[in-house]
């Protein structure tokens, strides 16, 4: 009988029910979309922030002070220490290996350049500049036998090359744009490079605009720099770009003074400092520094944007709750005469309340479900528009949405239901 009454109520006034259900579904759709996007936004933005490039810098522990001004190192070529290139694969073996999105070693060599321009035949006098050896797009052999491709195109994504990047195994180079403008170098020209007693010839494949000291330098494969400096298989600095969690007070604690439980918690959070600590563990003799300027800026902006979006989602939730609550309240008020009739034929306040609540709950689940489906589509559209990647639908959001829909409809109908239970049957039936 109870089920029949519920079914009847839906069957008799489908339009009215449809309206309430639609309001519910729309409200829940907006909340779903807002939540899905908010849940996803941290990861997405963290990826966007990798456009800032490396946030970790790795240098030899016992290095002499770099004497670098405007991209030119005034240190004699043989001073300072170097690190072995062959160890680099180990970086992808640390606990947070999947958070490391790229790395590139760098070795700078002071050089003198003679330009053999194809268009201009007059021999020019040698020009002093720095040659930075690095990886453009290099495949690193990992200890487990797989290859991992990384290089400057990952860590310094803002570098823009007019022409082509050099190939890592060819005598090619790209030339910084200020240097190129000064010397009239064009892609296709050949550079004769001298460093101390060694020399080599490189073909220019592109012009680099980096917006930094590299604009005034030559960038070539790491191998070439190693040959010129007579340091085969070595590098001087390593830039690592990693996805990290914004640092809090806990992240800044010194790992050597932590107890076992804290140390585990610390190493199991992808803080920039814990990743750099793990890198120091796998690469002997290095100092890993967090590049504060990048890491801290990233952290503070991420935290703020996330809070802002959660606030907006919360506002969406509030608005949806108001809308759904109002419409379910109206649905109950409307049925005053029905309630009066039921009372008149002997139904108790409890039974009526239960019946109406069951109806509302049914509506909430159907409306919430439909709303979730619409919301996921909405979130996909939004995600694709803003980040180019759609957020994954999450079960958690689905459960939250259903619970929320039920809560809000029940709360919305609670006050009118409470009043309804006190109605006297006679005046209602008289139409007063």
């Amino acid at each position, binding site marked *: 009988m109870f089920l029949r009454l519920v079914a009847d109520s839906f069957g008799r006034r489908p339009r009215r029910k449809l309206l309430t259900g639609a*309001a519910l579904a*729309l*409200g829940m759709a*907006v909340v779903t979309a*807002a939540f899905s*996007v908010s849940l996803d936004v941290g990861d*997405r*933005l963290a990826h*966007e*922030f990798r*456009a*800032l490039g490396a946030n970790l*810098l790795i240098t030899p522990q016992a*290095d*002499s*002070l770099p*004497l*670098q*001004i*405007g991209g030119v190192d005034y*240190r004699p070529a043989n001073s300072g220490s170097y690190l072995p290139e062959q160890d680099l694969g180990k970086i992808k073996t640390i606990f947070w290996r999947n958070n490391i999105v790229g790395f590139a070693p760098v070795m700078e060599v002071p050089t003198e350049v003679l330009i053999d321009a194809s268009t201009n035949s007059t021999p020019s006098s040698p*020009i*002093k*500049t720095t040659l930075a050896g690095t990886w453009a797009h290099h495949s690193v052999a990992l200890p487990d036998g797989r290859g991992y491709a990384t290089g400057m195109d990952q860590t310094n994504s*803002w570098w823009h090359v007019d022409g082509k990047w050099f190939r890592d195994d060819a005598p090619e180079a790209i030339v910084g744009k200020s240097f190129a403008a*000064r010397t009239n170098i064009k892609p296709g020209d050949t550079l004769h490079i001298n460093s101390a007693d060694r020399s080599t010839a490189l073909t220019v494949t592109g012009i680099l605009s*980096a*917006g*930094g000291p590299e604009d005034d330098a030559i960038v070539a494969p790491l191998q070439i720099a190693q040959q010129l400096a007579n340091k085969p298989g070595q590098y001087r600095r390593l830039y690592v770009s990693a996805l990290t969690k914004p640092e809090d007070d806990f992240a800044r604690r010194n790992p050597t003074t932590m107890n076992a439980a804290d140390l585990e918690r610390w190493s199991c959070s992808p803080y920039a400092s814990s990743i750099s600590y793990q890198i120091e563990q796998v690469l002997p003799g290095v100092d890993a*520094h*967090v*590049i*504060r*300027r*990048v*890491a801290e*800026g990233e952290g*503070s*902006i991420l935290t*703020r*944007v996330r*809070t*802002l*979006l959660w*606030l*907006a989602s919360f*506002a*969406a939730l509030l*608005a*949806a709750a*108001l*809308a759904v609550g*109002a*419409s379910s309240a*109206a649905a109950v008020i409307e049925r005053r005469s029905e309630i009066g009739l039921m009372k008149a034929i002997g139904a108790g306040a409890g039974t009526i309340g239960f019946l109406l609540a069951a109806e509302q709950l049914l509506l909430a689940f159907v409306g919430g479900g439909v709303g979730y489906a619409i919301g996921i589509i909405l979130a996909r559209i*939004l995600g694709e*528009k*803003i*980040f180019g990647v759609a957020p994954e639908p999450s079960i958690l959001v689905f459960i939250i949405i259903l619970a929320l829909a039920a809560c809000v409809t029940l709360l919305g109908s609670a006050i009118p239901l409470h009043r309804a239970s006190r109605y006297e049957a006679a005046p209602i039936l008289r*139409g007063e």
Partner: protein
Amino acid sequence: MPDRKMFWRIVRRLFAAQRGRLLVILLALGASAALTAALLNLQVDARDRLTREFRVFGANIIVTPRDTKSSVAGVVTLDESTVEKVRQSLPPRASADSYLYLVASVSAANSVQPVSAVIAGQRTARIDQSSLKSAIVTPRDNKNLCLVGVKAAQQLHLQPGDRLTLQNDKTQESCISVIAEARGDAQDSQIVVTLDAAQRLASLPNKVSLIQLSVAGTPREIREYIAALAQNIPEADVHGLRQFTDAEAKIYTRVSGLLTATTALVLALTGLCVMAAMTNVAMERKNDVGLMKAIGGATRRVLRLFLAEAALLGLAGGLVGAAAGLLLSIWLGKTVFGVAARPRLIVYPVSVALTILVAIVSSYPLRRLANISPASVFRGEA
């Protein structure tokens, strides 16, 4: 005009008759206006705030001497007259650091052997927001302190407070060391002194190696500023630090897109909420409409009556709600950005207008009442 007088009398009566119900509607309208105003204000403010927040990355524009042919340390320099020009062109909330770099041999009181290190002379000019006049801020000018990077301090076995002697050719400077926090960039291995000290040390009076600017603004504003500055100082090369300008532009677009999307969603939803509430009230007016029609009210006049009621409700709810919303956004700004959001006056009329609009639009179902025939209402049908 008696007709108009009667009209407003009925409207007044409509309000007086159903105080409880109207309070609920007013609450819904007020809440929606508050939400609208708060979100709109926060949205405008957050964009602005975000561009300022990006300045934690430090400098985003670099001014270097145009002619860098010679690569002998410290010889290619800019004249301080250029610094002055740059300083005069600074927009509000920007700062400019001028640097002079040189390599000098450094020895601490207890070190065995002098160490070569990069000395950076620094002077900061900052634009004060209130006065819009730039002022030179030189905290280390008179104190004779130098800021030693952690790596340099390590190399020198330096304790904070040790006296350092810097020597370049025949000139010599001494200062008391302060050890800087690790930054992970070039400054870790440099020693920062005042620009004057560096100029004396390098024997390059009134010269700087480069100027770093930190300018807040949308990506477009920054591009325009760079172009204007480059025209203003032809003797120097002005360019954005692509690492930061590019990333900032990218992130700014994403975040502002997100904000717009969420704001639009929430606004649509509040509209829906108000509509639901207003529709219910409208449907309850069936009896009133029936009665008015029965005693000869034209459908249009009856509709006008209810629309006037809705508009008045919207106005009242909007005025109060939008004010509350602005206060709310000030508080929200404080929780998110740590600084109270500045209330924008334009937001107030916009949200009031939006609320009135929503109130009127949501009375649209009243049109259905036009088809009601009085007889069926009185019979208790429909």
